[in-house]
């Protein structure tokens, strides 16, 4: 298939950036989006230019590195799919495809399609953990947890922290990400004791990083490659308001 790619090129966070057009011929419909970019990059390198920088690692939809916005949608048009799992057969012959980086003030652009998502790491560090004293690991079977709650926690834990929720939210809100991390830990007996403290700290860090506020548009849920649901945001709100009410200092 023949395609026209309009790719965002930006030298650094200081550079203004612009779209550069690339004409691609004979693209195999069976390659993934990233493989298509690899082929294009080979061409660009052979012509002596700087290849398009983009993040990627596992290429199997589990690491959350492959951040890009394809024709206005984070990770492209398919539901529950990361860019690395998106195939070119999803596009029409002759199509013009716009490829942009995730755009949010809290995700500054490093170069081209690469953005700095360390704001997510700082939110995690603020409280997205379980404090465990050292000693022997407890017997897993001795910790009571219902099937329903372990399933809900598992669904929340499926979040790969890719940032598509931020990228697709018109407010660049990180609430879906933070709520997935909050839910994943608070739903399990190991994480429950610290749930109020955790949510207060993580939300505070989220706000500090400059993400926007949720307005319940649901764009994040639709874009999430791991299908994290808005239910988690409601849980986070509940736990935050509860934590705020009972906080002692």
């Amino acid at each position, binding site marked *: 298939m023949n395609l026209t790619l309009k790719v965002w090129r930006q030298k650094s966070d200081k550079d203004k950036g612009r779209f550069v057009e690339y004409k691609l011929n004979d693209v195999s419909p069976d390659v993934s989006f990233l493989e298509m970019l690899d082929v294009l990059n080979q061409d660009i390198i052979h012509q002596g230019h700087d290849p398009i920088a983009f993040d990627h690692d596992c290429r199997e939809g589990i690491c959350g590195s492959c951040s890009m916005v394809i024709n206005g949608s984070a990770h492209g048009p398919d539901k529950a799919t990361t860019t690395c799992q998106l195939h070119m057969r999803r596009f029409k012959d002759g199509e013009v495809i716009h490829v942009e980086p995730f755009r949010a003030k809290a995700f500054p652009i490093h170069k081209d399609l690469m953005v700095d998502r360390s704001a997510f790491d700082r939110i995690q560090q603020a409280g997205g953990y379980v404090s465990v004293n050292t000693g022997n690991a407890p017997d897993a079977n001795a910790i009571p947890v219902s099937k329903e709650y372990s399933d809900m926690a598992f669904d929340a834990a499926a979040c790969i922290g890719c940032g598509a929720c931020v990228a697709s939210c*018109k407010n660049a809100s990180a609430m879906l990400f933070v709520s997935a991390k909050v839910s994943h830990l608070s739903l399990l007996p190991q994480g429950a004791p610290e749930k109020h403290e955790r949510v207060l700290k993580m939300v505070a860090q989220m706000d500090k990083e400059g993400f926007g506020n949720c307005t319940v548009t649901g764009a994040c849920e639709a874009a999430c490659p791991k299908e994290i649901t808005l239910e988690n945001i409601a849980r986070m709100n509940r736990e935050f308001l509860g934590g705020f009410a009972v906080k002692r200092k």
Partner: protein
Amino acid sequence: MATATLTLLRSSVVKKAIMGLTGLGLSGFVLAHMTGNLLIFKGAQAYNTYGHQLTHNPAYPLIAIGLLALMGIHFVCGITLTWENKRARTQGYAVDAADQKAASLASRTMAGTGSILAVFIVLHLITFKYGTLYTITHDGVEMRDLHRLVIEVFQSPVYVAWYCFSLALLGFHLKHGFAAAFQSIGFGHPKWSAHIKCLAVVYALIVALGFISQPLYVYLVHR
């Protein structure tokens, strides 16, 4: 401690909860207001007597101040949120998301519909609350003849059109807002969310159509 609490009070989650709670309060008010307006179909006496009793209720000043406060807080909080949200993405995308990953129009235009509603509410108060003071006597009680003012105002097609437009926007604001408010105060669950969304559509339709029926009825029937 005080500063920590202040930071928490200013947090996104609290602001959203305030938005939701004030929004729900206002939603209750508009439903009651709309229902009261329907008395226009019963005639001048019922309409005026209702208005008279309402404004002469001892709790009236308190309720009025409360509503004004709800409106003010909702407005200021909404503008603050929108301002912060704009700053969270300084550069937009060249292309809009396609169908299945796009957000609904109502949810994307809350600040716009809300701002038009703010203008509408101010003009509405000027037109009616602070409009011409006609009086009439029903059953020996002298009271304000709001019925006459309403009939007078809605002879103008411009007023009728502006009201229909603004109240349709109110319905649009509520279609998203009523459902979103539950989510914001922490009430979102797979078992209930779909029903709440459905309820929001029904509620918004009832409020908007109920309100719009009054100017239309006056314009078409009371010539």
